[in-house]
């Protein structure tokens, strides 16, 4: 078993009340341990707290109660640079500035490792080239980001994370807005990195296929955490997503496959079974 990289104990996060919004608890009583090199998929309906948990793990938001321990040390004891050397985040919406090339975006990953007037070395350039090669964008290094497809853009941010040399990758819905081909391309790439990858996902079938651990959140609380086989239970999913569902096993590859049914479809099927 891999060493624990994150440890969260009885952690809660509430957003401050404002005139228009009362105190809102985004996460409550979260206790869990994430192991190094795991590919963890955070699943759950909208508003379950997936993005909030990612913000907590990245150190951009501090918990209201409890601590996040990274390799045994509280996250708030790390400086912003130290965190950036260990954790790379890829946000859900990343609209790059016009005119930036793929090379320039990937090179931004050097930032946490460079001092004020320190120049890029040949080794740095080699590292950027290797990262672009790894994500299949080496030939597009001089292409501006506005010419890239959604999948290429997502891969470019992964390349930047590789240049950042962080051992942990946090991604907020990395397959959002991508077509089927690019969804698989990006997740395959993440699976092959050999890093700790934690990402929020809406597609349960993709999560079951690529993640070795799933974390099911509902109303800010952990409903289940474990392998896809342990987490993807029809009763549990029905309770969380408020829809009847079936969970089957792929005959060849043994992936879990979740099919949600509309309520009337479910009852028609149940009636036919009785008759």
């Amino acid at each position, binding site marked *: 078993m891999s060493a624990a990289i994150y440890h969260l104990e009885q952690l809660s996060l509430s957003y401050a009340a404002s005139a228009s919004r009362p105190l809102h608890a985004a996460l409550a009583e979260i206790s869990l341990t994430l192991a190094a090199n795991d590919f963890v998929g955070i699943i759950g309906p909208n508003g379950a707290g997936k993005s909030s948990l990612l913000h907590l793990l*990245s150190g*951009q938001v501090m918990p209201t109660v409890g601590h996040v321990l990274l390799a045994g040390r509280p996250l708030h004891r790390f*400086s*912003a*640079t*130290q*965190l*950036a*050397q260990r*954790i*790379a*985040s890829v*946000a859900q*919406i*990343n*609209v*790059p*500035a*016009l*005119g*930036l*090339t793929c*090379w*320039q*975006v990937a*090179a*931004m*990953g*050097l*930032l*946490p490792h*460079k001092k*004020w*007037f320190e120049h890029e070395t040949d080794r740095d*350039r*080699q590292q*950027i*080239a290797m990262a672009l090669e790894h994500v299949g964008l080496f030939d597009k*290094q*001089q292409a501006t980001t506005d010419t890239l497809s959604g999948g290429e853009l997502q891969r470019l941010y992964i390349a930047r994370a590789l240049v*950042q040399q962080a051992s942990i990758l946090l991604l907020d819905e990395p397959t959002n807005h991508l077509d089927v081909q690019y969804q698989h391309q990006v997740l395959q790439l993440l699976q092959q990195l050999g890093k700790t990858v934690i990402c929020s996902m809406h597609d349960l079938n993709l999560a079951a296929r690529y993640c070795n651990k799933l974390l099911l959140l509902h109303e800010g609380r952990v409903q289940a955490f474990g392998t896809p086989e342990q987490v993807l239970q029809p009763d549990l999913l029905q309770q969380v997503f408020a829809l009847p569902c079936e969970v089957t096993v792929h005959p060849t590859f043994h992936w879990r496959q979740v099919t949600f049914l509309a309520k009337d479809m479910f009852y028609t099927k149940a009636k036919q079974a009785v008759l």
Partner: protein
Amino acid sequence: MKTAHVIHLPVKLMLLVFLLVISVLLSLTIGSVDVSITQVFQVLSGQVSEPLIDTIIWQIRLPRLITAIFVGAGLSLAGAVLQNVSRNPLADPYLFGLMAGAGLGATLVSIVFPDHVISLALAAFLGALLAVALVFMACVGSGFRKMEMTLLAGVAVSFMLSAISSFILYFAEPFAANRVIFWLMGSLSRTDWTSVGLIAPAVFVLLLVALAVRRQLDAILLSDESARSLGVNVQRLRLVLLLLTALVTACIVAQCGGIAFVGLMVPHMVRYFMGVTAVPLLLGSALFGAIFMLWVDNLARSVLSMQEVPLGVITSVIGSIFFLLMLRRQLR
């Protein structure tokens, strides 16, 4: 393996430096007294042939030209930095209501306190700082997370201070009012070596700090969240750069009045020809801004035989045409 700007950047910068040197030499020959390029070389190399020419070059033209270089470089640099940290292509060094603040300072000292308790330049500088202080007070609660708040606060402060100036000018004696209005349009006619000494250090500090945080400036181009994930303290970076650009602009406004559009236009041209990342943008803006301001000043000095045209008038004409052309190009 190198990016396109790494290969070409030194060549482009060398070309700009060469153009700047040529512009300085030619500008030294332009003026009411005819000075040949040979005489310029003689004076600059210390071979004094005519004391009058020596005085014209060292005491009148050179300080004015060097001030023009630092004014152009400073305004363009401030514009480039502000446009990047705010990710707003319309951000401008006068965004904090600096011009209106300086105008109020100048109006007060010229009209309300004509005995000149303090100099016009110092009053303009204090007025500009007052405007910055008001904008910062309005935005301090947001922690500069929302740059649009800063921009809107700048617009509001600008209108407020301009209204006070207009009220005073409306009741002022026409000659004094004309003097303030002409000053507000921008001119290098009152500059000397003291102006160079006041503006140049501020511009150098801004350039050095901006180059030191060049990677942070690039990272912020994507988004605040993205920059934070790379270890950038976005709020602190913004605060430091906003203060520095405000200081540079206040120094320039105090010495030369209002020179519009330079800080808005030059970074756009540099981005088009040299790239969007911080190093080419900062160095290119500083050099191109300096060349641009030299030739604007040459035009201001030579277009009319008996008097100077205000710099702000020329930069506004060029700037507005440039933006209309840019708009047309984007619409196509």
